[in-house]
């Protein structure tokens, strides 16, 4: 009897959740249908897309070879890798020591630096690009990959430092004491003892940084809108703008897939890490 009542109340509970299930399923279903259809369309011919018979004549990999080679999609991907990978590493090299120092050393100006970090988080890109553009021009650095590597590193400093601080703050001071007794200097102590202790946080923020740099659009457009320098986003805008004229929908969809596939695949494997990277900033702040 009791068991039966439990079952009924369980069923009632699920029924109450039905509207919730429906909304979520519609939302998620829409997302996957959109992505799935575009992937199928990217393997079809433009004619098949318009007649509604996706893949009727089999898989057309030629859309991709065209998008990657003739439309320089591959070069854009390589450029994006050149921009994001070094700047992700440099960001950690710069921010991990800074976060460690701010969260564990007491010195004059510490509070000011923490305030400046918060201000840095709120400065819009538009406010900083004009002087940087003229500086890069004067230094004859515009038209090189260096500009974006530098900018992606520097603009990541506030959030990365802010994100890493609580992780360093949570480590017991006995580690440093022991290291000092053994005659280990502060720099060595940091890289050999403290840095490995926060490794999970480093991995999380690096994945997060990678995705936001990979998807960055505005600075890439301002500093790298030249043939041979374009990142995936800027390249996609240029490719679609030109394919729109010829109406090559299959080519456009293939180009779109090339842009979103890398991050979607990374996300499929590392979604937990990416989500923590996002929520940490909001909740702790």
């Amino acid at each position, binding site marked *: 009897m009791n068991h039966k009542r439990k079952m009924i109340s369980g069923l009632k509970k699920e029924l109450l959740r039905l509207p919730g299930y429906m909304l979520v399923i519609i939302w998620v279903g829409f997302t996957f249908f959109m992505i799935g*259809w575009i992937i199928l369309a990217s393997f079809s011919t433009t004619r098949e897309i318009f007649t509604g018979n996706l893949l009727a004549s089999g898989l057309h990999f030629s859309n991709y070879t065209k998008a990657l080679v003739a439309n320089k999609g591959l070069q854009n991907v390589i450029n994006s890798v050149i921009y994001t990978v070094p700047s992700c590493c440099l960001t950690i090299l710069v921010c991990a020591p800074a976060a460690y120092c701010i969260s564990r050393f007491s010195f004059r100006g510490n509070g000011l630096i923490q305030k400046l970090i918060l201000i840095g988080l709120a400065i*819009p890109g538009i406010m900083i690009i004009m002087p940087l553009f003229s500086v890069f021009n004067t230094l004859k650095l515009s038209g090189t990959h260096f500009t974006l590597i530098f900018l992606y590193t520097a603009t990541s400093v506030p959030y990365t430092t802010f994100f890493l601080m609580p992780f360093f703050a949570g480590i017991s001071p006995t580690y440093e004491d022991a290291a000092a007794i053994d005659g280990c200097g502060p720099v060595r102590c940091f890289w050999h003892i403290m840095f490995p202790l926060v490794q999970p946080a480093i991995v999380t923020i690096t994945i997060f940084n990678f995705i936001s740099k990979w998807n960055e659009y505005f600075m890439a457009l301002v500093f790298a809108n030249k043939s041979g320098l374009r990142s995936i*986003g800027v390249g996609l805008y240029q490719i679609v703008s030109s394919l729109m004229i010829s109406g090559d929908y299959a080519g456009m969809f293939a180009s*779109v897939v090339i842009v979103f596939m890398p991050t979607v695949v990374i996300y499929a494997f590392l979604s937990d890490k990416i989500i923590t990277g*996002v929520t940490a900033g909001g909740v702790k702040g």
Partner: protein
Amino acid sequence: MKQTKRSIIVFLGPAVLLYVLVFFYPVLRTSMMSLFEMNNISSPVREWGFVGFDNYAKLLNTQLFRISMINIGKIWLFTGIATLGLAMLLALILTQGLKFQKFFRASVYLPNVIAAVAVGYMWLLFVFSKSKFGLLTSLFNFLGWEKMAQFQWLSGENLFLSMCIAYVFSNTGYFMMMYIAAMENISQDYYDSALIEGANIFQRFLYITLPLIKGVLGMSTVLWTTRTIGFFALAQVFSNTSTFTPMLYTYRTLFATEAGSESVNPGIAAASAVVMTLTAVIVSQSLKHLIRTENYEI
């Protein structure tokens, strides 16, 4: 442990240097630029001519800039309500212990990892397309809602609405994750005792959940403000006067790279950047203030 000055400099030096180079100096120089007149963005300071607040006066009298400010205001308010509201609703649903909850959460967040330009084209080329394969057109045809199937998503006055829908879709997951994280910090004890007292689901939300996540709620409106002020990629993809945003206006005033762009004027672009930044700062500070005073009332 020994905290020598030297090691502080070694640890902090590079970060401080980058901050000064990329935030401190540029913000000061952009503010200065906004008071001067110059030929192009790279003109050296000795060629600048002081004009005081003329750039601001000209800017505020420019029709296109005014349209763009009104647009960003609409995006901030209406799209903001839709995004944060949906994020809250989805967060509530996805903290009830649904089956496949983790998968659903991750899937709602998914559009956030896709580049904004790609999201823009997914909507523009497929969802809103008026060709037979367009997602909304074929969906409404399938359902037999002919009026809706005829709707011109991409024609003049509807383009803005369509762009906002795409923006809501790609931002909801981010704020949902934030709300979920906050909701999961609330102790289950509160809900248990409320259940014993006979509080229904709405009362539980209103009197327990909402007050306890107020801090995060406030944080999310501030984050929304700093995000929307940089609204750019979608505006460029949906390119049209009706979808113009201040960011796009500033970009085009700096670089006349595209057809239909205005004459290049870095002074005015700098003024526009300052106006945008100040707007964002004032709005987010008042939001912070508003939420703080409300907290005291409790």
